[in-house]
């Protein structure tokens, strides 16, 4: 199920503007890779290019290669809709569908894939997804309440349950805890630890301690200057990046001297 991602020489443009320059990185399967860096350095943009979500913005395009287990993500035969069905995403702010119940939120992705499903099957998927997202005990008695009735942390776990209900191969998380309190954050970090046995997880975070806590590998992004494109400065095992980085900019960022 979990797949590795190989990116080579990727440039991301918005129209004529080069937003992210020349990224080459290997993201291993069944592990957590964290993207860190100052605001505006292109880490979210790069993350969104991994499931072609950046294409939602008009005139956005990429040059270069992204291979998911050897398959070209930007090949002619690849449909962005299918890409997003296999590469799930969790956003910065919890975004359950407000008009759907908790149950319908979890099953929403499955409904897209297969129109007709037995009630028992969908019940099983909902329970399994909510259990894996660590939310089952809290919501099992009110599955037909609206998703927006939950707290922020619960909503975010609901969004994770929704993302994993379709059994994606990769799970992308764009600052999933930045809108949450410390307790919910800790719950989500525990969840990431558990999910990594089954999924390839890529997480963008502003919080360096979080990157150190949850990730196996860390990639540091930076801007070469104002108005210049973001680029990947350095990548490696998390222990190494945080204890003995090669690039002076990485060291400065880790020690909190900028960013």
């Amino acid at each position, binding site marked *: 199920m979990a797949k590795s991602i190989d990116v080579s020489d990727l440039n991301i443009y918005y129209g004529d503007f080069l937003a992210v320059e020349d990224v080459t990185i290997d993201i291993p399967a069944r592990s957590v890779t964290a993207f860190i860096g100052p605001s505006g350095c292109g880490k979210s943009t790069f993350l969104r290019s991994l499931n072609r979500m950046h294409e939602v913005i008009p005139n956005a395009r990429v040059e270069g290669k992204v291979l998911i287990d050897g398959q070209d993500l930007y090949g002619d035969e690849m449909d962005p809709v299918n*890409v997003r069905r296999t590469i799930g995403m969790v956003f910065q702010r919890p*975004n359950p569908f407000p008009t759907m119940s908790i149950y319908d939120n979890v099953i929403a992705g499955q409904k897209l894939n297969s129109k007709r499903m037995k009630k028992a099957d969908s019940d099983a998927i909902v329970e399994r997804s909510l259990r894996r997202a660590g939310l089952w005990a809290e919501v099992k008695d009110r599955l037909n309440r609206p998703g927006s009735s939950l707290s922020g942390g619960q909503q975010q776990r609901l969004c994770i349950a929704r993302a994993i209900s379709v059994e994606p191969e990769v799970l992308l998380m764009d600052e999933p805890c930045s809108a949450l309190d410390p307790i919910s954050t800790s719950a989500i970090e525990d969840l990431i630890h558990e999910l990594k046995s089954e999924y390839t997880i890529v997480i963008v975070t502003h919080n360096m301690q979080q990157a150190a806590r949850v990730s196996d590998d860390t990639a540091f992004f930076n801007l070469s200057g104002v108005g210049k494109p973001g680029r990947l400065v350095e990548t490696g095992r998390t222990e190494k990046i945080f204890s003995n980085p090669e690039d002076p900019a990485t060291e400065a960022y880790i020690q909190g001297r900028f960013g």
Partner: protein
Amino acid sequence: MTTTPTPRRPRGVRRAGDQVFRGLSTGASLLILLVLAGVAVFLTVEGIPGITADPQDVKSGESFLPFVAPLVFGTLLSALLALIISLPLSVGVALFISHYAPRRLGAALGYVIDLLAAVPSVVYGAWGIAVLAGWLAPAYAWLETHLGFIPLFAGPASATGRTIMTVGVVLALMILPIMTAICREIFLQTPRLHQEAALALGATRWEVARMAIFPYARSGIVSAAMLGLGRALGETMAVAMVLSASGVVTFNLISSTNPSTIAANIALSFGEASGLTVNALIASGLVLFVITFVVNFTARAIVDRRKDFSGAN
């Protein structure tokens, strides 16, 4: 207006501008209520003699209920036809403008549709008789031949095309702009977050519309439909011009015998009415007033029923 501060409880500064604006806005809302109450009182007071009138004293020669029933039926039927035609059309056009069309084309199209609202209803009526009825007459003949077994199209098809169906189409065009404009605004307000949630699950554009946009816009679409329906219920000129009415109750949409509507009947009969006939016409206006109220309250009820799921919290 003096600004003397009360001794024990400081009220803060009283600004002349605030006072004036407050007075103006309160006055304006009171005025609306007064006008509405005035209309209701007028319709009731003038209408009651018409309701209780002896059949011999009014022009129709019928007591009030048999007189007004076909008109109510025709009003509801034509407005409903208009809504059935117009609702999917306006939702589709609004979605195209807000989410499918390139920005420039969308803006231009929106502008053109807003212009449709500026066309006077007399013009719609004239166009309905002169052009649309002629176009639709062959279609009615075809419907009679091929779908005549459905009571709606039983015929005999009108040769002139001046049927309740044609009225429905004209009314649909007339209510299209307001409905499209409201739907478009609501669609544009759908939070990006919800749309991205759907996209990230692998939704196509149509599925994004179904999962994120329509549910969010639901109450707005209902409001748009009700505003459109209200306009169609009360539309006078276009109906009066297009329809050759004969005061029947029939679901046959394409024949030359059609029910009239309350508003069109008032417009056509008022000039030559006198005495209790006038009161009867005003009473029919009261019925229309009540129908419009009921429609609006129903819409409110529909919107409120799923408040928890509206996304407003």
